[in-house]
């Protein structure tokens, strides 16, 4: 059987549909990628995938019957990494899952299993960083607003945490890179996109947008940060390891 390029729409459902088709058509030698990443001129047949809810669901249910909850989450987290070629690693992993009777989740001797575990770890590190480094600012409409530009598409992973924690305040978390966000209106969380490009200058304390108090609390937080430091213990290397420079733009205390 020949070589196939499977081109999917860049959504989770369409990715699972792609897996379904690969099994359905018994394709052996394949690479999966998005339209954007597809390089024309690659030899072999092309197969264009359109998301199909039923097919996606069957793959997911199949995985669910073979994997622990943690294992399922790992697959989803890897998918969200958007790393070049991650789809093929996931395909190899999924093939391994379906072709073994016992659980392969801990078979770290296998390259795909190890890679999935590593990517899962870096995606979760980004998730944790976002949970830590997001700084809300209170807008004039009483919404706590935060803009982010995470390395990976982690909004689906952080949603639950913020919903549980900030249940009594309205908030928006907006991914400037991927141009979408989530909005909690005290009842439910919804996906939103802004019709305009939000001001990238997220350190704004302008009172047209933000409450009077906002500037004061930012100042208090900066004061606090400055005064908990113990100069005689300074360790810049360690500091940068924990708070890499690319995150500073979010951090009220660092700008």
């Amino acid at each position: 059987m020949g070589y196939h390029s499977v081109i999917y729409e860049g959504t989770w459902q369409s990715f699972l549909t792609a897996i379904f088709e690969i099994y359905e058509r018994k394709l052996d030698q394949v690479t999966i990628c998005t339209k954007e990443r597809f390089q024309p001129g690659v030899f072999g047949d092309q197969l264009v995938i359109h998301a199909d809810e039923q097919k996606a669901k069957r793959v997911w249910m199949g995985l669910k019957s073979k994997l622990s909850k943690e294992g399922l989450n790992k697959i989803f987290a890897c998918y969200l990494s958007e790393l070049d070629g991650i789809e093929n690693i996931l395909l190899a992993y999924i093939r391994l899952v379906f072709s073994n009777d016992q659980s392969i989740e801990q078979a770290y001797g296998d390259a795909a299993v190890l890679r999935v575990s590593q990517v899962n770890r870096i995606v979760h590190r980004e998730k944790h960083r976002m949970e830590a480094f997001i700084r809300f600012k209170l807008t004039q409409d009483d919404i706590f607003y935060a803009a982010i530009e995470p390395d990976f598409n982690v909004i689906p992973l952080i949603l639950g945490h913020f919903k549980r924690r900030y249940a009594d305040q309205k908030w928006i978390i907006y991914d400037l890179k991927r141009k979408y966000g989530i909005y909690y209106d005290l009842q439910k969380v919804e996906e939103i996109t802004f019709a305009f490009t939000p001001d990238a200058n997220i350190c704004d304390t302008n009172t047209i947008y933000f409450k009077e108090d906002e500037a004061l609390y930012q100042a208090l937080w900066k004061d606090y940060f400055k005064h908990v430091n113990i100069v005689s213990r300074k360790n810049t290397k360690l500091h940068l390891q924990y708070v890499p420079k690319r995150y500073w733009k979010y951090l009220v205390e660092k700008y």
Partner: protein
Amino acid sequence: MSDRVREKLQILADAAKYDVSCSSSGSNRKNHNKGLGDTGSGICHTFTEDGRCVSLLKILFTNVCIYDCAYCVTRKSNDIQRAAFTVQEVVDLTMNFYRRNYIEGLFLSSGIFKNADYTMERLVQVAKKLRTEHKFNGYIHLKSIPGASDELMHEAGLYADRLSINIEMPTENGLKLLAPDKNRKDMIQPMNYIKNEIILHKEEKKIFKKTPIFTPAGQSTQMIIGATKETDKDIMYTASSLYKGFNLKRVYYSGYVPISNDTRLPGLGTAVPMVRENRLYQTDWLMRFYGFNIQELLNDANPHLDLDIDPKLSWALRNLNQFPIDINKADLQLILRVPGIGLKSAQKIVGARKFQQLNWEHLKKIGVAINRAKYFISCNSRQHERRDLTEMKIKQFILAGSGSKYLKNNPQQLVLF
């Protein structure tokens, strides 16, 4: 809120920063009342320039104090600016910081004004107000005032996630020397009370579902290291007996930061013993998570930890007769004792070897520090280290191969094995 509050925050954050505990984990208070916050994630929201985790708003209620402990900036005889918050100010700061995702909660401690109960009462009021009026479910750690009454300790336990009393000095003699106003008994007694209350509440909870939660994250304490002459053995034996005697969740070791010219203490300009502090934490971990008995790590023959190398390696070198162990066969307990293998790697090894015999390449991928581990293990491979190396030789090889990481003047806090 105004400039006055800013000034107070500066003074009272400054005064609180020497308390090292900043843990916000161990509790899992749910956001059950559609209020604000939950606990259990233990997030570090930022890190200070010295690389310490900032998780809580850590402040003193006041830095007015009637005592004169030599090692403390807040001591009565120290000529500094004094300030005191009101209960409402602390509540507002906590709520507003929390809502902006700056913090996991509040760590409130205080100098002693008037007397122990008067001070403790104010700390309890803050916690009570946050929980009842503001439906705050974030983390609250109160530092109990030595000598506070059982009634106040009880109330504190109902609202706080964690209570702590700092034991301050590793030995009673050290305490007598530097904090003549204080005595061990005033510290031990509330600790004991809290321990018993926690047990009681747990028992009641089994019978009555509605029993209120009581300090779900338990209690912790802190010792100052290097202010007096105690050995590492003294320190860790005290820690071990505190873990056992009072079911403590954590003991913190805080390298003394010189703050005065008092001749009883290391002078200004003396380096903070950061490597030593790190070694003590490592020892603490070995004791709590790696199944080591404290007597194995520190004893009369070895009263001090080796500063050049971590305590696990140090132990392994003294006990070469117990090695090498076979990675593909040995119990988890033994694998945990191998230098260069951490908790996670050990678990991964035990998981992965069910599928195939592991070799050096596998171990490397799993995350084992081969350059250290190789002297102590064998695996599915023909090459292994020659076994006739002496303790000194191995130590030299490891030190030479590990770059600057183990040199005394380049401490990596919190890097464990």
